[in-house]
């Protein structure tokens, strides 16, 4: 996006500035996981968690989920943002970090070797993807338009040439229609949108930053409501990523194959369930489950948030730690 004076003046946020936004230091951040099973939300300001809501799926005017159709217009009464911020005793406007869980067909995420790509820079690669993904993947039969992003294998946003610093890159894509729906919803909430991060990427990034062993290869399996993701990590980078819908048997076969291929040591397989854990790995895998205790240790302390009556409460849910990390990391 090229900034220009004309564009700035045309979109000059008069109302925001005149309502005190000109001198506002930090806006409250609302991070929400949108999952068919459970949609927890966290309100933070700076490093402090103000409010944790277990499930916002029942709240009116909630953020659009990928499986829901076009949302209706304005809901009567207070907006979703106003309700959550009021519970956290924070004021409008908020910044949103949305972590929508997407089905396999709605989320493209794969690791590509740079030497297998024709494009020499991230910008050109993005242009090719936006024009026609078949220029990059060869086989792409999805008729819907997607929004694309290029990430390095340590899940950072790269810029410039792809030649040397990145031997592999991750290409991720979401349906453009869903992203537009989220943007319209955020506009309606008079809020800003910090990022739309699929939970898999958030989990991988958190894992890379905190738990992943630096020297040894490891496997992280993220269990979501609709999807299970298998990622192989080595030297702080993601080198392989697979998504599975429901084929648990095939998942175990694939896991066994990857463990052999990358010589993953016993105990270096991690299983992370964002919702209620359903997946049970066979014992011979010696998997370590990423629990709230592990996350608490990795996060450096107990996660406290305010509850009714101004009392501080600790939560046992891994989603709360992930949301807190996402709010701090992204916003």
């Amino acid at each position, binding site marked *: *996006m090229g*900034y220009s004076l004309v*564009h*700035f003046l045309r*979109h*000059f*946020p008069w109302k*925001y*500035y005149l309502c005190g*936004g*000109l001198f506002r230091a930090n*806006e409250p951040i609302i991070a929400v996981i949108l999952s068919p099973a459970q949609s927890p939300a966290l309100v933070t300001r700076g490093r402090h968690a103000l409010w944790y809501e277990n499930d916002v799926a029942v709240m009116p005017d909630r953020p659009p989920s990928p499986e829901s159709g076009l949302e209706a217009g304005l809901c009567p009464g207070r907006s979703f943002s106003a309700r959550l911020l009021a519970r956290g005793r924070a004021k409008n406007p908020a910044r949103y970090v949305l972590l929508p869980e997407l089905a396999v067909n709605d989320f493209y995420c794969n690791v590509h070797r740079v030497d297998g790509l024709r494009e020499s820079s991230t910008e050109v690669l993005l242009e090719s993807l936006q024009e026609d993904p078949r220029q990059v993947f060869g086989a792409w039969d999805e008729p819907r338009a997607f*929004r694309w*992003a290029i*990430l390095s294998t340590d*899940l*950072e*946003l790269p810029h410039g040439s792809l030649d040397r610093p990145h031997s592999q890159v991750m290409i991720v894509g*979401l349906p453009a229609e869903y*992203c*537009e729906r989220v*943007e319209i919803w955020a506009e309606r909430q008079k809020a*800003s*949108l*910090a*990022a*739309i*991060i699929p939970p898999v*990427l958030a989990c991988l*990034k958190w894992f890379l930053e905190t738990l992943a062993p630096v020297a040894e290869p490891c496997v992280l399996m993220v269990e979501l409501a609709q999807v299970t993701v298998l990622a192989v990590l080595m030297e702080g980078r993601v080198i392989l990523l697979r998504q599975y819908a429901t084929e648990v048997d095939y998942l175990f076969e694939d896991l066994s194959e990857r463990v052999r291929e990358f010589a993953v040591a016993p105990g270096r397989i991690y299983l992370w369930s964002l919702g209620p854990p359903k997946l049970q790995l066979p014992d011979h895998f010696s998997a370590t489950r990423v629990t709230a205790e592990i996350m608490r240790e990795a996060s450096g302390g107990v996660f406290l948030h305010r509850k009714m009556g101004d009392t501080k409460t600790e939560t046992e849910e891994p989603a709360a730690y992930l949301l807190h990390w996402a709010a701090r*990391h*992204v*916003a």
Partner: protein
Amino acid sequence: MKNLFVSPERVAVQNYRTGLPFRVAAAIILAGLVLQAPMLLSSVLTWRRYQRAQDRREMLRAETANFQAQLVPLQETKRKLQQIHQWEPIFKARLPVSAILAAVEKSIPDQAVLGSVSIEADQFDRVPVTGGVYRVPTNYRLVLQGETRPEQGEAVQVFSETLLRRLPPGSEEIRNDRQPRAAGNYNSFVLQYSIKPNGNYFGMGVQRLADPDPL
């Protein structure tokens, strides 16, 4: 992963809200607008003052036109008045000869006898009026010749002083000659005066009209 999957347009608009350079630019713009307020107010007041002056000017112009229209029938009268005014120096330079004679008659003592009285005009000015040019005298010369007994010579002096007091202000005695007459017992005298016609003839008994002509 900031701004991941957020459209560039949306990111730009959000940056306008929170980005420091844009906030600084917005602060400058808003401060500039605030500073414009007195200027705008001044402009509005000046414009309103200008409008009022314009209205006043229009009103005066209409009034002037109205007066001009009212003056049209008076033009003929004005012209006649100007013609009459042209006659003013002529009328002003007139001298009431009968009043002069009356003054002489009242002033002459019993001991003196007048032989001749002459009044002549001189020092003429040219005054143009409608119909031609008039020669208007600016001075009159009064010459009195008479006789008196030799032993009553002071009577001439008394006569001269009395007459001079009655003549219009500014009048002067030019000549006062007294000579014995060779053939008789009388002395002759000649008195000459210069009289300026200045319109003030009240000393000679001329009275102001009770109701002057309004024209």
